[in-house]
C-alpha cells in the first residue's frame, strides 16, 4: 500500500546555498547530507512534516547532458517552478520575507482559491505561496 509522498526533487545549482536559503530564510530544517561516490545527497523538510523530504539536486545523471543542461538553463532563466507552499497569512509572510531580502515576484493577490504570492528562491526557482480559502469550480468561470 502506498502511504504518502515522501520525497520530491528540487533542482538547484549549488546545494549549500540552496539548503541555507530554505533553512535560514524559509524555515525548513536540514534532514540529510551524505557524500557518496561523486554524488551528494542533500535533503530538507518542513519542521512539521518530516515525512516529506525535499532533495536538493544539481541537474545531472540520470538526466543526460542535454536534459541536465535544460534544467540548468531553466533555473538560470528563472522559469523553473519549485514548490507550492501553504501559508497562514500571505501578506504578513511576504513582509517578513521581504525584510529578509527575498525577491517577491508577485505581491499577494486575491485569487478564487485564496491569497497568492510568488517568490524567487536563491537558485532561480519560483515558489508559490497560497493562503487558501474555500472555492468551487464556478469561482473560476
Amino acid at each position, binding site marked *: 500500500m502506498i502511504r504518502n509522498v515522501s520525497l520530491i526533487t528540487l533542482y538547484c545549482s549549488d546545494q549549500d546555498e540552496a539548503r541555507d536559503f530554505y533553512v535560514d530564510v524559509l524555515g525548513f530544517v536540514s534532514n540529510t547530507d551524505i557524500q557518496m561516490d561523486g554524488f551528494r545527497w542533500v535533503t530538507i523538510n518542513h519542521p512539521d512534516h518530516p515525512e516529506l523530504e525535499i532533495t536538493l539536486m544539481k541537474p545531472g545523471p540520470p538526466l543526460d547532458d542535454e536534459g541536465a543542461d535544460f534544467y*540548468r538553463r531553466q*533555473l*538560470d*532563466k528563472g522559469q523553473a517552478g519549485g514548490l507550492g507552499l501553504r501559508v497562514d497569512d500571505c501578506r504578513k509572510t511576504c513582509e517578513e520575507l521581504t525584510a529578509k531580502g527575498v*525577491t517577491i*515576484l508577485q*505581491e499577494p*493577490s*486575491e485569487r478564487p482559491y485564496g491569497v497568492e504570492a510568488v517568490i524567487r528562491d536563491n537558485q*532561480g526557482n519560483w515558489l508559490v505561496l497560497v493562503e487558501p480559502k474555500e472555492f468551487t469550480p464556478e469561482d473560476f468561470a
Partner: protein
Amino acid sequence: MPVELLSRLRLARDRMDRDYQSELDLDRLAAVAGVSKFYFVRCFEAAYGETPMRYLTRRRLERAQDLLRFANLTVTEVCMAVGFSSLGSFSAKFRRMVGESPSEYRDRWAARGGPRVPGCYLFMNGVLHLGGAPKRDDDCAILEKPRSEGSQ
C-alpha cells in the same frame, strides 16, 4: 550568448516583475544585468522571446487587468498604479493586448458581481502611491477623480 549571462538576465526580469510600478528604463535594466544596453536587449529577446520593454509592458497590463477585476479603482488610478505615466498610452496598449478598453474590461467584470477590494486597502498595502510618490505623471492630463480619494 554565454550561459553565465542567463542568471543575470533573470535578475533584470525579476526586477521588472517586482518593480513594474516604478520607472524602469533600459539603462537601469541593463545595469541590473551588468551588460550594455544593446547587448542586454539582444540577449533578453533571445532568451525570453520578446524585448525587455515589451515584457515590462505585458507585466504592467497583466497587473492592470488584475486591479480592474478586483479593485475598486478608477481606470486612471489603475494606470498609475501599474507604472504607466500616460493614460492614452495605457489605454491604447491595453486595448491592443486585451481586445477591449480598460473601462469595458472593468465593467464587464463588475457586471458579474463579487466583492471588490477597496482602493484605500490597496493604498495601505502599498499597491497605490497616491501623492508623495516619485512624480511620473506629467503627461497624464486627465484624472477621473482627485488622487487623494481613497487614501484615508
